[in-house]
Structure formats: C-alpha cells, structure tokens
C-alpha cells in the first residue's frame, strides 16, 4: 500500500459496513487500515496490498456477537 491512498470518510466506512451486512458484494474500492496513521484509506481495485494489510472486510466479515 502506498502512502498516496486517500483517507476514507466516516460515511465510506459505514456505507461499506452496511453493504457487507446486506450481503452485497462490494467490487469497488477496498478500505485498508493504515497503521502509520491509524486511519482507513481507500485502496483502488486491483492495487497491490501488502501481505499484512488489514482490510475492513477482513475485520468485519466474521461477524460480531450480539
């Protein structure tokens, strides 16, 4: 992941979460946690993510207890 990826907005994050929750396949940009800033950034489709990149999908896809 380069340092040039734009910061995601709060709405980007909740929109992504809501789509995942509805089971809608999100083929658009991925949201990736940038440990250097502590923020989620928007990674373009097909961009080369580092092996230890943490995407929002990988955090949320196994669900939350309730």
């Amino acid at each position, binding site marked *: 992941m380069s340092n040039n990826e734009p*910061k995601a907005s709060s709405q980007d994050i909740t929109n992504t979460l809501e789509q995942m929750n509805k089971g809608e396949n999100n083929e658009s940009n991925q949201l990736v946690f940038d440990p250097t800033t502590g923020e989620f950034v928007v990674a373009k489709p097909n961009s080369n993510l580092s092996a230890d990149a943490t995407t929002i999908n990988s*955090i949320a896809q196994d669900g*939350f207890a309730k």
Partner: protein
Amino acid sequence: MTSERLQMETAILERYFSRKYKFENLNSSNAFLDVGVKTQSGKVYRLKIKLSQDYPNSLPEVYITYPLPLLKKDGSKLDGASHDFHTLGNEGNNIQICHFKSENWNPNQSLYKIALKVRIWLEAYEGHLRTGKTIDNYLTS
C-alpha cells in the same frame, strides 16, 4: 498471560497502536489493557479489555470507558444488553460491547484484533449518531 504471550501482544500493539495502550495490573485478577482508539472522524475513545487469568484461551470482555455515558442519537443513554446495538451490559457506567463471536475466538487471535473489532463497532456507533440507524444495520452478526 505468559511472559512470551505478553511479549507477542506488545510487539503487535506497538506496531499498530504505538503509545496508545497500557497494560494494567498484570498478574492479578484485575488485569486489563487500556487502549486509546481514534475513529475516522477524529473522536477519541478509551477501551478496557479485561484479561482473565487464562487469556488467551477465553474471550476477553471489552468496555468503553471514555467518553461516558455513551448516548444514542435521541439523547438517551446507551445502556444494558441490546441486540440492536451489540451491547452486553454495564459495569458501572462502562458499557460492555460485543466483538468476536465466541465460536470465532481462539488463542491465535490477539488484543490488536479485538481493538480493531471495537474500532469498527465505534464507526458503526458514530454511523448511528449520524443517521439514527441502529448499530446492527452496520455490523454483520
């Protein structure tokens, strides 16, 4: 928690939450990890992740300890156990929130991953504050 495990957890936290965490009361029945988390909007929260004697074999309890109380969009207090808001109850004013499902927890997970799960819960909470939709609109069960 063994010293080897503590070393591993510390190494990961230092990489992803550098200078934003502190272990408290280690080697006691009141051990916990205090973590500061900043959401995408810039708001700061503090978490208390309880570390039972048999951690990492059991799923830790997580509480929001700052700011308190957490409020809903309508101004009422976020309180008690709620399916709609993915909360489990209270410890005083601290609200206990849901994170990992117990069936998805195993000793290969880490405190860092719990903090990221809670970060997502907080983003969903702020989504609720913006839109009024309950947190379960955002979080997969």
